[in-house]
């Protein structure tokens, strides 16, 4: 490098000490970006009102409308409630996920995105940091849902450990859909269109699943889709955890879904973020 000798010279005098190339840069920068979102939330607690109100409204509406239906076939009273609450937990996560994509899209079009792109920071940290902030929202939402549902009669037979597991499932599922929404939003690249495109499938996918009714009770054409649906996998795993049955099969099914959703759209979303005109 012929001119390289000049570069460090310029970087020298009066230059603030920049950390050398960091191996843990990804983790560090992710933490910084997550910290940014959480700080914004702390400064603007109003932004938490909707994310916390949404699950409570969903719970009230669904339990009031559907809660007293018998789940058919000589079910015990309240059995449908036990079935429905895990579905609502997952539907709530699916309905929260589009906000990740919309936030990424808003950031991508701002001067802040150019600032980030011009920094020697880790590229995936922008998405991962946002997910870190979202994880807190998902966790609070799921805990709130579980708490209120318990008051209304929902029981988790596996106790606190089971409840913690359910919150973790909601967070993991929510983040996977968040990654998908981030990629789709950046692909669509228009806030208004993205808003419509992202929310509608989030509602549809929850209905074509075992979230609100057992797959066997769905319309015939829906059943294959419902069986092959991450919402079904997540809702089934939560039901298994709440009831205390063997969880290995739904666990691996959901794990596969999450791995696919995070890996493919995740890489595409990061590349999309980095690519600018």
């Amino acid at each position, binding site marked *: 490098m012929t001119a390289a*000798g*000049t570069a460090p010279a*310029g970087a020298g005098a009066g230059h603030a*000490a920049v*950390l050398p190339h960091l191996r843990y840069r990804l983790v560090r920068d992710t933490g910084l970006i997550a910290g*940014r979102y959480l700080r914004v939330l702390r400064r603007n607690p109003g932004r938490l009102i909707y994310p916390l109100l949404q699950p409570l409204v969903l719970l009230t509406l669904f339990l009031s409308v559907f809660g007293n239906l018998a789940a058919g076939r000589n079910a015990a009273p309240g059995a449908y409630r036990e079935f429905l609450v895990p579905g609502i937990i997952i539907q709530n996560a699916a309905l929260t996920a589009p906000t990740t994509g919309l936030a990424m899209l808003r950031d991508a079009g*701002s001067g802040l*995105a150019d600032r980030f792109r011009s920094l020697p920071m880790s590229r995936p940290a922008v998405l991962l940091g946002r997910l870190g902030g979202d994880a807190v929202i998902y966790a609070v939402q799921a805990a709130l849902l579980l708490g209120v549902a318990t008051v209304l009669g929902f029981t988790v037979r596996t106790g606190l450990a089971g409840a913690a597991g359910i919150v973790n499932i909601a967070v993991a599922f929510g983040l996977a859909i968040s990654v998908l929404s981030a990629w789709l939003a950046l692909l669509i690249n228009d806030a208004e269109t993205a808003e419509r495109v992202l929310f509608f499938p989030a509602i549809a996918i929850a209905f074509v699943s075992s979230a609100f009714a057992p797959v066997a009770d769905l319309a015939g054409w829906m059943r294959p889709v419902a069986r092959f649906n991450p919402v079904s996998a997540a809702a089934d795993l939560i039901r298994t955890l709440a009831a205390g049955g063997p969880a290995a099969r739904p666990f691996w099914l959901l794990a596969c879904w999450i791995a696919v959703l995070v890996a493919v759209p995740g890489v595409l979303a990061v590349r999309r973020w980095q690519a600018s005109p």
Partner: protein
Amino acid sequence: MLNSSAAGSPLAVDASGVAKSFGSVTALSGIDLAVPAGTLAALLGPNGAGKTTLVRIVATLTRPDRGRVRVLGFDVAAQPGEVRRRIGLTGQFAGLDDALSGTENLVLIGRLAGLRRREARARASQVAELVAMASAAGRSVRTYSGGMRRRLDLAASLMTSPPLLVLDEPTTGLDPASRQQLWQALAGLRAAGTTMLLTTQYLEEADRFADQVHVLDRGAIIASGTPAQLKSLVGGQVVEIALADPGAGQSAAGYPAANCLAAGYPAPDGLALDAEAVARALAGRLDLPPGSVRAESSARRLTVLTRTGTDGDAGVLLDVAAALRADGVPVADLALRQPSLDEAFLALTGRPEVAA
């Protein structure tokens, strides 16, 4: 620092043959650009000339289709990380999070640039001081005026004291006082040896502050040089005419009113002299193309851009004076000067700088 190297004059930015298209639109068509370290280079041109595309390529935000760009010795395509460690970018839109305070923005950006927490905090208060934002740094950016935003954005680019600062229209949309404050900060940085590459639509800014001006038009650099060199490209000299107020009395008294009327502009007893009409008549008398004589917006001043006449040649001044006297135009002041960058731009592109 960089500008005094044994290698002579090392280049902070060294670009050759840079081309970039967006679909069917050619943004840049083979640009060569050299910015010596320690200097301030201004990219001057109308909207859509390619200025922003060029600085985005230098700042590693956009990849060129063709050509090679080295920034402080590092290739922007092959070593973008090394380039990013050495540049500060102030984009056209402030790269700040509105929901955070000024200090929080500075610390976040500093840490993402690689500073440790303690250093980032110390540096944040230094740079806030530097751009006269120390007292407002604790407030949410949402409450800032446009000028404050710009200054904090500049401060954010300075967190790591980068040897090269890239600024895309740093003063666009600012009121004169804010522009002044921003330029004060930039002048201080240049004095400290920071190389700067900036775009501007303001000719007088390029004229006052730039070491080198590169005039972009339709994706190509059509002229490069110091402001003085660019002005000399215009070739001629400028005669400035200040029209006298004909109603004021004695200054107009000596001129034959009949000539003035014959030439088609109001007689000296009218308060307003039609400067446009004077300009047209003057161009005719001096046998110059119509665009060479322009009436300023004040309507009391005219400029005559001559193609002939060399530096220090007062002959053209006498020609203008004779033509004015022949038409009986009352003149308060007559002066010969070098063309402004504004006029140079007009001469280079064939149209005023505001035309897109």
